[in-house]
């Protein structure tokens, strides 16, 4: 990469996020409320720069964090969803064979010689997420979200590590593509298996906890702006109590948002047992969980139940 472009990008990032407070404020401007710990981790991911590994329960906003970061930078969010058996053709690039074949046929019809160099040029390349992230032209780095890395095989992990370290991809037919603006990599894992130490060594790490009730109420109100403030507070408190219970699937932030939206549609202003009963489907996604909470009594979730 040209050093000039790189230092230019660095300066631009520095100007955008001079310190952690500014980052937190700008994240809030794109409707993402990060607490001190997450804001600090994101700050260093941007400024060191260093890939960041995010872990946390489902629905605490791991993916949202990456989206918010991309929105803040005004750059694309490039997402690679991992799964078992994912390979280079699906993560990096693939030649567009049907199109190449078509070009060959056309050339034959026209009696022109087939130019192989043209066949293996950028025009016939399908860019998968990793290549797209490496090729991102700037001026600010793209955000590369590598989602659920633990689902991919470990040899893919090793390959990814190399790619993140070099910020370059070699395509035999084209040569090496080097990033002018290395992407900001956010990795998430659900911890179904241990990631390699080598990868963890390269990454910053942050465990995202569920937000506090106040923060969650604020998040909910950002997403459902016309919901009453009291309702958001009620639901945030109720969701917190649900997470303490022994549920199979404790509700995430998304469920809290859905719940408020559902309650608002019904014209509910404060959460009570009857309203909770009508809308339980929005927040508990297992029949057993719903049963358990109904047995224990939904008034425990109602407004003010936990305040006394």
């Amino acid at each position, binding site marked *: 990469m040209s050093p000039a472009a790189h230092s230019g990008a660095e300066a631009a990032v520095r100007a955008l996020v001079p*310190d*952690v407070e500014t980052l937190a404020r700008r994240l809030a401007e794109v409707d993402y409320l990060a*607490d*001190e*710990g997450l804001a*600090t*981790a994101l*700050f*260093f991911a941007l*400024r*060191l720069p*260093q890939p*960041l*590994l995010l*872990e946390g329960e*489902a629905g605490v906003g791991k993916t949202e964090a990456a989206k918010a970061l991309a929105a803040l930078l005004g750059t694309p969010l490039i997402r690679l969803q991992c*799964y*078992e*058996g*994912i*390979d280079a*053709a699906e993560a990096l690039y*693939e*030649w567009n*064979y*049907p199109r*190449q*074949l078509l070009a*060959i*046929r056309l050339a*034959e019809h026209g009696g022109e010689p*087939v130019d192989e160099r043209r066949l293996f040029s950028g025009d016939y390349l399908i860019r998968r997420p990793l290549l797209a992230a490496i090729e991102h032209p700037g001026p600010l780095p793209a955000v590369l979200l590598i989602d659920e890395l*633990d*689902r991919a095989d470990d040899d893919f992990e090793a390959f990814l590590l190399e790619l993140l370290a070099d910020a370059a991809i070699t395509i035999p037919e084209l040569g090496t593509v080097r990033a002018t603006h290395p992407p900001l990599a956010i990795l998430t894992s*659900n*911890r*179904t*298996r*241990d990631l390699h*130490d080598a990868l*963890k*060594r390269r*990454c*910053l*790490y*942050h*465990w995202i*906890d*569920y*937000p*506090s009730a106040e*923060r969650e109420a604020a998040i909910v109100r950002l997403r459902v702006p016309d919901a009453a403030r009291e309702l958001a507070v009620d639901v945030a408190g109720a969701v917190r109590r649900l997470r303490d219970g*022994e549920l*199979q699937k404790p509700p995430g932030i998304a469920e809290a948002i859905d719940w408020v939206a559902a309650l608002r549609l019904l014209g509910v202003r404060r959460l009570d047992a009857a309203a909770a009963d009508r809308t339980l489907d929005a927040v508990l996604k297992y029949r*057993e969980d719903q049963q358990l909470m109904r047995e224990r009594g939904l008034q425990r979730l109602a407004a003010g139940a936990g305040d006394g």
Partner: protein
Amino acid sequence: MAEAIDLPAFAAAFGRAVHAAGIPVAPERSARFARALALAPPARRDRLYWTARAVFVSSREQVDAFDRVFGRVVDGLADPAEGRGDPNAPPPPGTRAGPRAAPPHAAPLDAAGEGGAPSPSGLREPRPDGEEAARERALPVAAASALERLATRDFGQLSPEELRALRRLMRELSLAPPPRLARRSRRDRRGRRVDLRATLRAGRRTGGDPARLVLRRRLERPRRLVVLCDVSGSMEPYSRAFLQFLHAAVGGADAEAFVFATRLTRLTRALRGGQPDLAIERASAAVRDWSGGTRIGASLRRFVDDHGRRGMARGAVVVIVSDGWERGDPALVGEQMARLRRLAHRVVWVNPRKAARGFQPATGGMAAALPWCDAFVAGHDLNALSAVAEAIATPRSGR
């Protein structure tokens, strides 16, 4: 910390303290920490905390140990283990002993080696000094008859030497869960899918006409093997032998290993690699509730919630080693077994007491679990263990 302190020196010293607490720290991390401190000088205590934590911690299990080091180094506090609080509040001065009941982080290796770690009674074996090692080497010569005897000796009655011999035999046990189709494929003339890339490349030789199809077929990969082993009081005679079994499973079949009594502990990492004695010692040191009471249902729920549901048990062969003596509510065992079975490919229950004369699976937990097991085997001695291996290798029949 506003005064001009020597950042690199502070960073290096802090890194050493974290490392000493059992969190692996490569020098590059200390360097990264120094850069981070220079980038955003921590004006407040909690900023320093989050900065150090983002750099040094790389899994949630390490957070507690990290908090203690941070408390000690930064606040000069001894070891306040009673910190509590809201998970989102910035950590109080001292420590933040996680509100989620401290998952056991592996004890530092040297502590385990020097006999400083809490050792489960009767489970610690002497370190392999010269004499011991010589005896182990001599064992193969000690005649096949000894091995023969070993094959039918109940695991509950083995001497330390026999246990040692057993370990080697366990390693030879082939634990191979049935395969599943992988996404990945390989060129194969009898394959079903056409490999366009290779077909076209080959076609270039015939003037751009793909004259010969290159075929691929899906690869097969072994399913994941997950072993959950009960180490509560009633299972104590068998604990050592099955810990060796876990070690063999992790080493030989890349299995995930857990033990439980009152709580669930993941041992995969502790058991992986290195010298077997050390690995097993490391694993025993990581378990906090040896020979405790049994909460099978709660432990299973922990497993399904924290690991199984997230994908570890999906399509896997899950082996549970337990006598089924549940202190808690047997109904919970049944409930959690039902969940586990919905996730797993097969569930195999190994009960070493099954071989005893007059055994009836009447103990509450066992009776509740049985309807959800695909196989129920004894596994009380080496011969019986090959039946376990067989049960693991059996593909699922239509349920």
